[in-house]
């Protein structure tokens, strides 16, 4: 029997059979200005020639699955003949869901997996449990690990002792990639160019130019300098989707510090936005969100756990999720933790090579684990006992 591993994120689904490689695909539908009658699903995004003013239809709200119509359309597409050609009569699914998922969402999920799609067996788990499985698999000598999963909707800090999730230590910060993109969009629209409709473009800008500052005050001073001395300033050439397909930064030597460019491309000049936007992960209070930043919440989480475990958690911090890819993120987090944690405790922060697919890879390992068949709920079990058997068996 084949096993399909699906890390069902709020922005991208990480999907693939356990014997194949992973693919990262948008978990949403789109409408475009140019072909208004058509709705594009998941990777059909690539078919849109002019993705300006792209309209998003997302199945998730605040990180929880609420819009099943959209989710089913996306899954129909992913499982269907255009993509994974899933043979439901001979497939087991390993699927992820958020921490503290709501009971009604879990029941809907069971129903759709077993009754609509008729998978032979299913295992629902948290993405973090898969990441932890991956971590302990590569480092069998470690006892504990602390995951910092910073994704699209929010950031979670989750301690794991062996494969057991320590629920009392879970902390959630309501800052994720979506909020960062929307904030960047807002400040660019206020300061220079109206881009409120251009989520897709501005998300690319964020990924291309934003970074986590190592010394926030110093970078703020540098950003206030004039012209050539302002090493933070970049000019970003926006795509027009005819001659420029993808936006890019002007090389420093081509930058014009005074006057306008004669070439006529649309330019965004980004200065303190570059590091002030990701800074919200570290200081959500900068925009009025009354919550701790990541380093403080990590310490808060670890201090709520048994004292003899605490040194192990500080030594095994693993970063996952898309926000991990901001340059300087790991270094900053390690430096701030170092200054918060007692000096005699070593601190070590690990950033995997691919933080987005780290949990999917963990799911792949789990699917090949001899115990996997013991962990799943089969369709017969479900038809016999209903939701109860899922609730008992899955560690959520």
């Amino acid at each position, binding site marked *: 029997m084949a096993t399909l591993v699906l890390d069902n994120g709020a922005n991208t689904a990480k999907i693939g059979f356990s014997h194949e490689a992973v693919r990262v695909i948008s978990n949403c539908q789109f409408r475009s200005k140019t072909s208004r009658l058509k709705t594009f699903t998941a990777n059909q995004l690539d078919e849109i020639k002019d993705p300006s003013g792209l309209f998003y239809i997302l199945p998730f709200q605040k990180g929880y699955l609420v819009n099943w119509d959209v989710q089913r359309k996306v899954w129909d597409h992913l499982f269907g003949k255009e993509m994974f050609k899933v043979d439901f009569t001979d497939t087991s699914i390993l699927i992820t869901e958020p921490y503290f998922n709501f009971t009604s969402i879990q029941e809907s999920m069971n129903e759709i997996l077993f009754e609509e799609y008729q998978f032979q067996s299913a295992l629902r788990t948290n993405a973090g449990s898969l990441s932890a499985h991956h971590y302990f698999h590569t480092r069998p000598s470690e006892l504990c690990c602390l995951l910092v999963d910073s994704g699209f909707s929010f950031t979670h800090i989750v301690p794991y002792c062996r494969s057991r999730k320590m629920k009392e230590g879970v902390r959630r910060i309501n800052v994720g990639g979506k909020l960062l993109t929307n904030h960047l*969009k807002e400040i660019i629209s206020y300061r220079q160019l109206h881009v409120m409709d251009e989520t897709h473009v501005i998300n690319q800008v964020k990924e291309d130019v934003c970074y986590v500052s190592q010394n926030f005050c110093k970078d*703020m001073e540098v950003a*206030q300098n004039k012209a050539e001395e302002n090493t933070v300033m970049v000019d970003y050439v926006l795509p027009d989707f005819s001659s420029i397909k993808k936006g890019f930064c002007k090389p420093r030597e081509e930058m014009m510090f005074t006057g306008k460019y004669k070439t006529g491309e649309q330019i965004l000049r980004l200065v303190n936005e570059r590091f002030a936007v990701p800074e919200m992960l570290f*200081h959500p209070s900068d925009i*009025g969100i009354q919550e701790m930043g990541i380093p*403080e*919440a990590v310490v808060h989480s670890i201090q709520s756990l048994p004292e003899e475990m605490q040194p192990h958690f500080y030594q095994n911090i693993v970063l996952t999720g898309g926000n991990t890819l901001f340059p300087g993120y790991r270094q900053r987090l390690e430096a701030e933790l170092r200054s918060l944690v007692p000096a005699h405790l070593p601190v070590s922060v690990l950033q995997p090579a691919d933080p987005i697919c780290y949990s999917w890879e963990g799911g792949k390992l789990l699917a090949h684990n001899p115990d996997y068949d013991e962990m799943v709920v089969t369709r017969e079990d479900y038809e016999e006992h209903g939701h109860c058997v899922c609730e008992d068996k899955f560690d959520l």
Partner: protein
Amino acid sequence: MVLEKKTSARVEGQRRVLDEATRQRRLTRQLDALEKDNFQDDPLSSLPPPGPTARLPAFSENEEPEKKRRKTRGDHFKQRFRKNFTTLLEEENLSEKPEPNYLSAAAPVSSLPPRHFCCVCGFPSHYTCTTCGGRYCSSKCLCTHRETRCLKWTL
């Protein structure tokens, strides 16, 4: 410079000052806006709704049962599976459930004092707008702020 100071002092006397509750409401609304999926309208909704031709029933005998089945299935999903986040959160009734749960997992308020940034240019700010409580860093930014944002989005 002198002129500018004069006008701002005169305007000050007439200015409405927002109370704390209104300022808090404005902040909440700004934060809610950051959760939005889209700011523009759905391109499909700007099209005229499909005319009566699209609604005409199919008269073919064979097609009828299938159409019916699809419709009921859709209805079923609409009723059972279309709830928004707030409804779901209320239904969970978390205040009565044992901790840890969704609500108890939220990171608490930081022990560090909040930093302040100019709402116009984004650099560190030292001054507060007396009307709305927004932050600004220089008289230039204050002018921009008053012209564009200060009382524009009040509730």
